């Protein structure tokens, strides 16, 4: 087991990692920006080291600074959390070259699945269904037109270097293709450093269902069930749950099998998530991408399986075998997570400011992952996630009731939050009956 791990992240996930390290007897160093110098994870880590000024590019994305920080603090491993450098293959490569253990999969797996167009090819070759569309990034406008015509409108243009719901554009007719492609290329180039775009058929009424996988260095690989993350706004998840409700048994089993096949095709080690769209009309499922990192919504899987995913990542990185098999994984009950963001609950415009009061919910079956304190100035340089409120219940109805109760007692003063939106979804008939789709998301997030 490692003696010391450097955490190259911030906010709630940094705190999450610190907590598990404490339980494992591993010393923690947190690499942070100047803006986060007084944050809760910095206070609670055993050591801290400032790696740059406020902006993410100079600090949390500053590869050299973070590696340097790990070296001068005698850290043996780096946990990248999610976002920032978590899916940066060059970072994973450099860690390896410097004798630092990157807590995650190999640079090769990150690279292969990081190119979202190539990931489709890999999945298809592994026998996993993918959304009809272009095999490779589109060469030019003519190819875009051909692919779009063949797939049938509407189509969606996606950045090959994107992911996580960013760099996408829906195109509803042939006439729109040229302009949409140009706009997408420009945005992608600016946001992701690559203007490669691929095209997929756009599924009008889709559910987003993803599968958690875990693999150790001995080649043992298993899944920890699926999560339904269909409640979204502009492809950003807001509510997640496990297991996915209202899914036929064979679809569920098919998703698990497909996820393992996709993970196996890149010899995946550590925690990862394979994402699918389930066409609500036809019931078919399609691979869309694989995320080679821990996800924000990992707690819902932890609540139903009783497995600490961060702990498993660290154990796996330290060379330990998983120590259990697929048959040993049991899930009980139902879990829900609401992402409390510092945003207006109607417009979703970020609500910057100072949190002056924070009362977390609690009680039976409630878990809160949050770096919030009061008073706390929410830094405007990073994402707007304040807290993840997670509940577990014996069944879905109980979990929903418990989440309503937990949200109702949550107090955040000083900034606006998405809590009123969550409460609206939790009473919406489409959500309550199960099988919420992208159409329901659009309806509930419409201005």
């Amino acid at each position, binding site marked *: *087991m490692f003696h010391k791990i450097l955490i190259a992240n911030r906010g709630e996930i940094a705190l999450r990692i610190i907590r598990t390290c*404490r339980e494992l*007897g591993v010393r923690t160093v947190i690499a942070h920006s100047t803006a986060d110098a007084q944050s809760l994870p910095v206070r609670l880590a055993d050591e*801290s*080291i*400032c*790696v740059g*000024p406020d902006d993410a590019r100079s600090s949390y994305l500053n590869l050299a600074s973070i590696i340097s920080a790990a*070296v*001068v603090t005698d850290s043996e491993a780096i946990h990248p959390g999610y976002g920032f450098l978590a899916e940066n293959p060059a970072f994973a490569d450099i860690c390896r070259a410097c004798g630092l253990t990157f807590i995650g999969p190999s640079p090769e797996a990150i690279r292969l699945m990081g190119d979202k167009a190539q990931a489709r090819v890999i999945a298809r070759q592994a026998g996993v269904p993918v959304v009809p569309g272009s095999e490779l990034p589109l060469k030019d406008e003519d190819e875009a037109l051909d692919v779009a015509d063949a797939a049938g409108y509407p189509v969606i243009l996606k950045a090959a270097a994107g992911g996580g719901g960013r760099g996408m554009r829906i195109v509803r007719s042939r006439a729109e293709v040229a302009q949409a492609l140009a706009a997408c290329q420009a945005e992608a180039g600016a946001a992701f450093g690559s203007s490669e775009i691929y095209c997929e058929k756009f599924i009008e009424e889709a559910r987003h269902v993803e599968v958690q996988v875990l693999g150790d260095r001995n080649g043992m690989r298993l899944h920890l069930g699926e999560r339904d993350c269909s409640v979204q706004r502009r492809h950003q998840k807001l509510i997640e749950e496990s297991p996915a409700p209202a899914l036929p048994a064979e679809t569920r089993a098919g998703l698990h099998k497909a996820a393992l096949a996709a993970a196996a095709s890149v010899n995946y080690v550590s925690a990862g998530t394979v994402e699918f769209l389930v066409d609500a009309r036809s019931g078919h499922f399609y691979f869309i991408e694989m995320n080679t990192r821990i996800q924000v919504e990992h707690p819902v899987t932890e609540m139903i399986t009783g497995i600490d995913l961060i702990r498993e990542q660290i154990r796996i990185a330290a060379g330990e075998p998983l120590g259990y098999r697929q048959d040993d994984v049991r899930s009980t009950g139902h879990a829900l997570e609401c992402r409390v963001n510092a945003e207006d609950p109607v417009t979703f415009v970020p609500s910057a400011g100072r949190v002056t009061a924070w009362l977390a919910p609690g009680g039976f079956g409630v878990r809160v992952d949050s770096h919030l304190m009061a008073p706390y100035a929410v830094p405007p340089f990073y994402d707007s996630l304040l807290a993840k409120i997670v509940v577990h219940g014996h069944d879905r109805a109980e979990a929903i009731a418990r989440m309503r109760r937990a949200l109702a007692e949550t107090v955040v003063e000083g900034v606006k939050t998405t809590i009123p939106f969550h409460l609206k979804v939790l009473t919406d008939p489409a959500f309550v009956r199960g099988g919420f789709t992208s159409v329901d998301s659009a309806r509930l997030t419409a201005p």
Partner: protein
Amino acid sequence: MARARRARLPASGPPGDERTVELARRLATLLGELGLSEIEIESAEVRVRVQRAAAPVLAPPATLPPAAPDERPLVTDLVSPTLVTVEAPMVGTFYRASSPTADPYVQEGDAVKEGQVVCIIEAMKLMNEIESKVGGQIARILVENGQAVEYGQPLFLIDPQS
């Protein structure tokens, strides 16, 4: 350093439970004395590993740990407002001289010009020369040779009046 060490015992008599337990006890004592987290010993007959249990349950702090865990001196308390601070522009190891045998770039009391190299910060085997942003006199050197420094850490106080 708390790493596992391996050592081979000379072959001795049959281990038996008692001898093994006694061995484990002695290893556990060694663990503490040497500040290790794990020791494993192998002989022809037996292999014993002693491992420190996961960190003891921490008593919940009575109050939140202090807001500023770093050891940087509070320079604003110590210095006159005219002094200029040279801060580390990067994470790395601070060195007073260009090599272990060379003289330090500056001493306290030395005069410096704007742009003059005052120290090295080594990051990833690359030596970065750090320059003074003002001319004046070195009033105070705030860090030790070979010390790890973080971004923004105050390194020198320079009196620009001199």
